[in-house]
């Protein structure tokens, strides 16, 4: 921890003044960690398409993994602190925020919320410490936005279950010690804890992706995997199980993307202040100033939206439609800012010397995962009209 970074002077509206002392300390801690450990290396990780496994325990030691859960070695922080942490991580790279989202909200949360005491004791402390990595298996090769039609299924065999199927686009899948896998059963969709090394369970990492390269994405195969009766999450049946997890993760995303957008805005503003063309700083050109002004206005609106939803969540009042609005709106804002920032940087904007194209490419995945922009749009359409356009 060689230096402490202060907040950048890009918060014109002083939105961060609304944060509590603890939330600011969370912000500064994650920002400093990112400056020390992530930012110096992330362009190389992105180019190489890797993420060092040793980051897991480092991030766990900070307390980022499952930070919003109570007990079992988790810090038990509020929703706004969780959002701020996601924001500061994603200001470094969406892949790092994805790692934390998946571990905390998609793998630990269902165990914490729906697991048995034995399951919680066995997995949560190790997952919080980053000693065990988790993943979340819902999406399938042919069933993305429509998870209810999943093919993966589990059937009873005496006291055991036998799990069969394929899951696709699974973050952390290839490094996971424990997979939370959702499968159709006679009594509806259930969640199963499948440990690494279970006979018949294999994972294959997906290569040749041009987005979230500093993140492991995998395909999971379950070939008649025999699991004990104790492997099922006892607390939930039906699609509401995985959907409740996704709602948690989407909340983190709608904060996180404001970090990516801020990083792009900062890069563009800095570039505009120093880059000269036609004998003057390009920041002095009206077209550039217009771009920067609108980027800032859009960024601060997204930040206000995140803070507002954080307050609703802390009050226990947040609804899935509100999360849909936040995820849809903030990711779209972030990707627009990233692309606009890229134009300010000109050709330099497409290189990994600057963070902008990395963020812009990452946000293409963020736009699609955890509920596509289209599905969130239709969820809002249904909330407004009372008519479902898709199911």
């Amino acid at each position, binding site marked *: *921890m*060689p*230096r*402490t*970074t*202060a*907040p950048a002077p890009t918060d014109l509206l002083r939105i961060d003044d609304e944060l509590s*002392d*603890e939330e*600011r*300390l*969370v912000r*500064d*801690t994650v920002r*400093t*960690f990112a400056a020390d450990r992530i930012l110096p290396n992330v362009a190389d990780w992105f180019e190489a398409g890797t993420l060092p496994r040793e980051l897991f325990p480092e991030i766990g*030691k*900070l*307390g*980022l993994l499952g*930070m919003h859960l109570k007990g079992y070695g988790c*810090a*038990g*922080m509020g929703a706004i*602190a969780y959002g701020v942490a996601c924001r500061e991580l994603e200001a470094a790279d969406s892949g790092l925020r994805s790692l934390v989202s998946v571990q905390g909200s998609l793998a630990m949360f269902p165990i914490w919320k729906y697991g048995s005491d034995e399951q919680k004791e066995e997995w949560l402390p190790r997952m919080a410490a980053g000693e065990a990595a988790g993943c979340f298996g819902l999406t399938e090769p042919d069933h993305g936005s429509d998870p209810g039609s999943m093919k993966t299924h589990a059937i009873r065999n005496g006291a055991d279950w036998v799990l069969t199927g394929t899951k696709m686009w699974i973050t952390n899948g290839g490094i996971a010690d424990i997979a939370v896998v959702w499968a159709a059963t006679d009594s509806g969709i259930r969640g199963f804890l499948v440990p690494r090394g279970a006979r018949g369970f294999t994972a294959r990492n997906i290569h040749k992706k041009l987005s979230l390269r500093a993140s492991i994405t995998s395909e999971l195969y379950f070939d008649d995997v025999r699991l004990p009766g104790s492997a099922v999450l006892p607390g939930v049946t039906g699609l509401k199980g995985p959907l409740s997890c996704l709602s948690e993760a989407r909340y983190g995303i709608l904060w996180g993307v404001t970090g990516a957008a801020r990083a792009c805005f900062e890069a563009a503003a800095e570039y505009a202040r120093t880059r000269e063309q036609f004998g003057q700083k390009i920041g002095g050109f009206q077209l550039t100033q217009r771009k920067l002004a609108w980027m800032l206005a859009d960024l601060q609106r997204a930040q206000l939206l995140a803070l507002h939803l954080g307050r609703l969540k802390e009050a226990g009042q947040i609804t899935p439609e509100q999360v849909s609005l936040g995820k849809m709106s903030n990711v779209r804002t972030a990707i627009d800012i990233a692309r606009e920032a890229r134009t300010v940087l000109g050709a330099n904007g497409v290189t990994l010397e600057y963070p902008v194209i990395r963020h812009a490419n990452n946000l293409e995945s963020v736009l699609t995962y955890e509920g596509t922009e289209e599905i969130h749009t239709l969820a809002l359409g249904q909330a407004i009209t009372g008519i479902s356009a898709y199911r």
Partner: protein
Amino acid sequence: MNIVVLVKQVPDTWSERRLRADDSTLDRDAADAVINELDDYAIEEGLRLQEAHGGEVTIVSMGPQKAADAIRKALSMGADKAVHVTDEALRGSDGLVTSAVLASVLGRTGFDLVILGSESTDARMGTLAAMLAERLGVPQMSFASKVETDGSKITIHRQADYGYDTVEGALPAVVSVVEKINEPRYPSFKGIMAAKKKPVETLSLADLGMDASQAGLAASATQVVSFANRPPRAAGTIVTDEGDGGAKAAEFLASRKFI
């Protein structure tokens, strides 16, 4: 072991720092405030010694109300409790006044070991350890790059241009540390939550039995009489490699004592 770590809140070295035009004191509103960088190392060393020898780590900080943020970070890293000396009358205090106030606090808390950064990034006097040791009548162990103690004796590596001296003394003692000594930990989120419940005693000058006339700019032995902005950086030296570039580069580094 009763370990006291002295922590100062300073303007972030990454932001633009200014002095006030009216009385030449630091403009604290002009820059973001953070823990003095070397004090992070002092906190870390205090925590490591506590982990090895037991006892308590107490944070002592003198500064405006905002310094509570620095104290919170130190408690979140793992210190047990804190004393915050804050008083409007302290504004503009120099090293001599600061050492008198801190010596008074240390008289209240008691200590086996006082640890502090070897200088602050704002004033950069680097004299506080010596002043405190003198006022407290204990050994001064300065510029430590390594600290070892058995609970009664303390041995440090005193960092020097040529390497280090091994210096030994008896506890209680005052130790100032350099950044080579360790790698400070980050505050953990559990630590941040726990810090909310840790005791922080806030003291005024009156609580310390001191009078406002003994503190602040007026009571200080030193004052900033004038200041000027640093001149713009001069052009660098360009060395043309005529087969002796390596030697010239080494000469340059040696002249700056880098090698």
